[in-house]
């Protein structure tokens, strides 16, 4: 029997191009009203408002005990769906019927008040999440124990470290006892130690036969925890089914648009009177027919430019940056003289080298090993997905690089009991 049934749910937002989202002012409203009534300007106001369908005609039903993973790119409507299911906002059209008590965990530590102590916040947050006082009392010790904050129970949470804060928040949520649990990307916070704990707790919950909806970008976690998955794209539920199938579909649709850039005509190409860029390419050697880049995938980076100066002594220098902007490495070619015409450089990035994450490449053309002729910043960007085998741990793998080194383990002596 389905516990959640959604029929044709859609959610429309009006995007106002004139002002930023959120609080608008009365002045704008008055001005708009005047404009609306003056026929001359009618068209102008019309164009500034745009409809945006965050969700469109979504239908599904979820059975008791299903553990649904929801995947999709940013802005695909995943969070909007969770907001509707947790009754934070209402759908523009359509209807959802839910049977049973729902607890939604869209944020860790919702409603924590910085001035209140850990103890007070446990009661406050518990009540906000819908726990009764006796339930909180009963789980109080378990919560404190799970969060590991015994010593700081009577300290205001504003004095907590961010780690303690998050741990306390999750600990409270983990002790909710709903029939349906909705979780949004909570694993994005906290250190890896804590993420491990969270995933363990979520596995316990899922094994107890409760219905779970789980949004995450962590595909490994989704594959481990969920038996079914929904794939959202541009506000629509484009595919649903068993987790492996959906994850495969999702990965095969990962956008490739940034893996190649080129300029056909010399005039429009970026550069200056000494060099002009012709194009870049990132050529992955896909490991399976999914055609996505994961931590195993070796890649070839190719770069072509026009040299406009006869006999210039040139070399290339490539920087690889993490998504947050730290430089992970810088490699350069040897310098050699080139005559006028096309020059090509290529660099191999081996598989089992970079960790999963988003990366950016920038390319520099250097003259006489000292003068930068041209620096193409953020030439390309690409994502590396996670891939694991024979591992039952699903937390974020730490580090920027993830090399496969010769690391072995062996028994050196056996103690025989007789």
């Amino acid at each position, binding site marked *: 029997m389905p516990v959640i049934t959604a029929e044709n749910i859609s959610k429309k*937002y009006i995007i106002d191009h004139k002002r930023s989202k959120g*609080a608008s002012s009365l002045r704008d409203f008055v001005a708009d009203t005047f404009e609306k009534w003056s026929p001359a300007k009618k068209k102008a106001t019309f164009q500034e408002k745009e409809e945006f369908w965050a969700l469109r005609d979504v239908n599904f039903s979820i059975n008791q005990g299903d553990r649904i993973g929801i995947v999709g790119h940013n802005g695909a409507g995943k969070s909007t769906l969770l907001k509707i299911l947790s009754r934070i906002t209402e759908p523009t059209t359509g209807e959802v019927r*839910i*049977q049973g008590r729902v607890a*939604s965990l869209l944020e860790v530590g*919702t*409603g924590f008040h910085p001035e*209140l102590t850990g103890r*007070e916040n446990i009661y406050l947050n518990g*009540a906000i999440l819908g726990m009764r006082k006796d339930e909180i009392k009963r789980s109080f010790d378990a919560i404190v124990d799970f969060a590991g904050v015994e010593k700081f129970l009577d300290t205001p949470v504003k004095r907590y470290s961010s780690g303690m804060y998050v741990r306390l928040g999750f600990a409270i949520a983990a002790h909710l006892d709903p029939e349906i649990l909705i979780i949004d990307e909570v694993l994005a916070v906290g250190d890896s130690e804590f993420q491990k704990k969270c995933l363990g707790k979520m596995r316990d919950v899922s094994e107890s036969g409760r219905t779970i909806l789980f949004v995450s970008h962590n595909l490994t976690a989704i594959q481990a925890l969920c038996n079914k998955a929904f794939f959202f794209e541009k506000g629509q539920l484009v595919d649903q089914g068993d987790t492996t199938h959906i994850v495969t579909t999702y990965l095969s649709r990962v956008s490739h648009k940034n893996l190649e850039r080129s300029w056909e005509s010399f005039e429009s190409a970026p550069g200056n009177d000494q060099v002009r860029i012709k194009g870049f390419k990132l050529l992955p050697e896909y490991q399976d027919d999914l055609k996505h880049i994961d931590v195993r995938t070796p890649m070839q980076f190719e770069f072509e430019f026009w040299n406009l100066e006869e006999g210039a002594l040139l070399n290339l220098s490539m920087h690889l940056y993490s998504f947050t902007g730290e430089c992970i490495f810088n490699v350069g070619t040897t310098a050699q003289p080139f005559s006028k015409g096309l020059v090509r450089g290529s660099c191999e990035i081996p598989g089992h080298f970079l960790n999963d994450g988003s990366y950016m490449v920038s390319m520099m053309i250097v003259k006489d090993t000292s003068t930068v002729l041209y620096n193409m910043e953020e030439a390309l960007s690409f994502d590396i997905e996670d891939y694991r085998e024979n591992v039952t741990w699903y937390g974020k793998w730490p580090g920027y690089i993830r090399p496969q080194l010769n690391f072995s383990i062996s028994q050196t002596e056996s103690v025989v009991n007789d």
Partner: protein
Amino acid sequence: MAHTTTIKAKASEKDYWKDLWRNKQLLWILSKRDISVRYKQTLLGIAWSVIRPLMTMLVMAVVFSFIAKLPSDPGIPYPLMILGGLTIWTFFANTFTQISNSIVLNSNLVSKVYFPRLIMPLSAVSVGFIDFLISLALFILLSVYYQYPPSINIIFLPVFIVFTFLTSLGIGLFFAVINVRFRDIAQLIPFMVQVGMYICPVAYSSRQVKDEWFYKYYILNPLVGIIDGFKWCLLGDKAYFNPTSLYSTILVSSLALLLSLMYFRRKENTFVDHI
């Protein structure tokens, strides 16, 4: 089996009030939060609830009785009359202000978790009510000092407290909803409260205006009946109180409350889209 929830556009749940009742613990906990957080990191702490009304009363007593030379009702010490009016007016003004800001101030909750949104304005009342009780105690002390004990009319006091609460809810809920959309309201409210204090019989007695041509409009203000009645409860029959002014209190307040509630219920599921 557990209860069924239906989520669709523009249809708040049919068992909304049951839901509200089920969440009474949350109401209590949010009220407690507001009270315990109120004077955190202040040197004088809760003493501020005593100091503030006392100072305001002193300033008003000096300005209105010595400088503006407004007369008190015959036989009633002027500071007592002012503190009486001020007590109930401050209760109204605080409650109204806090209700109007309640949704915006709790926006972190609105965007992350569901509960009947009416809990926020309701819990916002708590702080004002504590201040009111302190102010009332202060009044009793002052009346002992002036050897002017409260009259037997005091048994009607709860009626006027309830009226004040309902009126502030009726007006406040409306502004709370608008405030989500237009933050101008938050700027407007202190001004409204300031003007309100002068058009209500806080620092003067309604006796002063009862023969004026505008009295029939003046009396439409639901707070006139409340404030006069409240003073009548505390100060006895010497205080001016025209019971007919209560008609407009009841009529205007209940109409405002009804309309505001309907408006609030209609809008509460889309608050998050504007926060």
